[in-house]
């Protein structure tokens, strides 16, 4: 039972869904999605943090939420990226076609992850081994995104974007798991409608991104 599920001031909207048999956690997580998505859009348009698009950081945020404890989530994420990097160097001289190459990557990453899980068990980190399978599968598949960026934009950019993705996902995790946020959504579920005007504003905003103030700093002296 969730702590907020028992408050007597439950919003009628929530009540309706609960009575239809929708689990409370599912309800909250689904409503969390537009908030995290808006947060990612804000970081992209106003701050200038790119990450791997909107889908990857979003899905990783939820993968983090689904693992028991964010540290295990981060450990799995880093393992995937590290394996992806190492494999890139190993596979480079073979000059393989794209899909087979990604398939090999996925194989190796999967083996790597099994190793990490076993290692966790060895050190009595049972939390790691008991992470449910879906977040693990989700994180394995981000290796494709990583490889695609490696090919398109090079290793350096791929690593930067991976770090940005990790950063956004960690922020997203803390937003989505903050008690204040859960409480707010429980009490006023309609609040997520506010993401619409916010996103319309973001979609029309043509100002400089925060990162661009740094990028173009040199020009400032000459304005």
């Amino acid at each position: 039972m969730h702590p907020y599920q028992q408050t007597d001031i439950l919003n009628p909207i929530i009540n309706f869904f609960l009575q239809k048999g929708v689990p409370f956690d599912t309800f909250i997580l689904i409503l969390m999605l537009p908030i995290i998505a808006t947060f990612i859009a804000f970081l992209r348009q106003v701050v200038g943090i790119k990450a791997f698009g909107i889908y990857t950081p979003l899905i990783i945020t939820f993968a983090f939420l689904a693992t028991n404890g964010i540290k295990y989530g981060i450990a799995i994420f880093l393992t995937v990226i590290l394996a992806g990097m190492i494999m890139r160097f190993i596979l480079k001289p073979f000059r393989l076609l794209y899909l087979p190459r990604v398939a090999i990557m996925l194989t190796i990453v999967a083996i790597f992850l099994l190793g990490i899980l076993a290692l966790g068990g060895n050190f009595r980190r049972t939390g790691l081994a008991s992470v449910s399978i879906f977040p693990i599968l989700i994180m394995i598949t981000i290796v494709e995104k990583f490889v695609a960026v490696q090919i398109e934009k090079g290793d350096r950019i791929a690593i930067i974007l991976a770090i940005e993705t990790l950063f956004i996902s960690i922020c997203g995790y803390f937003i989505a798991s903050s008690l204040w946020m859960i409480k707010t959504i429980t009490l006023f579920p309609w609040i997520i409608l506010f993401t619409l005007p916010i996103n319309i504003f973001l979609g029309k905003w043509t100002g400089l991104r925060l990162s661009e103030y740094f990028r173009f700093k040199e020009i400032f002296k000459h304005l």
Partner: protein
Amino acid sequence: MILRFIKKIFLYKKARHQILGMNSRNLDFIRPFNLKKAKEIADNKLLSKKILRENGLAVPNLIGRIRSREELENFNWQSLPEGFALKPNRGFGGEGILVVYGKKKDLDNVWIKADGSLITVNSLKNHINNILDGSFSLSGTPDIAFFEERLKLLKLFKPYCYKGIPDIRIIVFNKVPTMAMLRLPTKLSNGKANLQQGAIGVGIDMSSGITTTALWGKKKIIEYIPETRLLLSGIKIPCWNDILSLAIRAQEISNMGFLGADIAIDENNGPMIIELNARPGLSIQIANLSGLKERLKKVSGLKIKTVSRGIRVGADLFGGEIEEELEEISGKKVISTVEKVKLIGKDGKEIEVEAKIDTGAYSSSLDIELANKLGYKTEIEKFQKFDFSCYEIKPENEQKIKNFFEKQYKSNLSDIKNIAVIFSASGSSIRPVIKINFEMNKELIISKINIINRKSLKYPLIIGKRDLKKFLIDVNK
């Protein structure tokens, strides 16, 4: 502290209006001006090549193309020339491009790459397979590979480049070239002229085609080619106006309102369009130390009818930075080899003439006809009656002649203060010197000009070194 902070905020506000950011580029310029149809042309290299060629613009020749595995198997490798460039049709950022410089003589189907390493037909096939698979295409969709003639590096650029060919990126908006940048391949970029991959971008002054500031990679401002003493500013791009007109024509033809045209110069065939870009990068602003947004705003709304008008507007609006900069640093004005001069004669009489700037002469000299018109007729006629025949005009006699003039004749004259004894290959002469003031490039020069018959010469006035102390001369102007 607080004051500095407020100052900074004002600066940021200003920057917002002048610098083009990603958001504004996409929403204000690409979306409304680069319609889907036009973007499709730009993203499809073979199509844009075809359309540009049909309209009479220079593009590198197409040697052959491979659309499928089948065509790859049946491809006649002997049909390839010694050097060529292999490109993916929908590639971007210079990815997937392979340049071959020559054929290995004693081996069959082996070529030599830019770095001197060899590439066999099997590796080529593999690369083409990757292209067909879409490894280098924008959305990862299956692609076409094509062979193109390899451009010859211009001698001028040779010392500045590592392996590949430099190109010139020109942003054209509303038929006006708004900003330009020379992109030089480096060791870091592995011979590719792409800033993201570590090439050098050098800003170009729009009116003169001379390079200004250099940017290495995404952020670093440099002065010299790394590890050398080769200065990056002050390189004069050849065929500058042809390049600009190519870029403007490309915009007209592709119908792309906001275009980044990439133009390379071939040693034999001159400027050629190598690529059209519907989403030009923003680093060009750093290389020019100037905001693109402000420039685009200035250009929008203008009605430009012809290509040459577009070039002129671009030069007028966005050129001349070099001159201004030089004038600022040196406090001197930049003039060309021929300048308009306003002569101020007796009683304030003014005559405007074209003068030749001659750094080979020490003093300025003026045609006798003009001097007469300026009101010195009676004096000059008096002078012409003087007799100097007692001295031979030779360098060793110069002082004696001058002394003789002082003693014998000077007291009769009011305007002629002195004489000049000129020794030259075409004949030596004794000329009267008159104090005449003139105005050039808004500077008043107090000068002593010698008078001689220049009737058969192109310019009635030459300005010599003594009167050029306030100026710098640009022979390209």
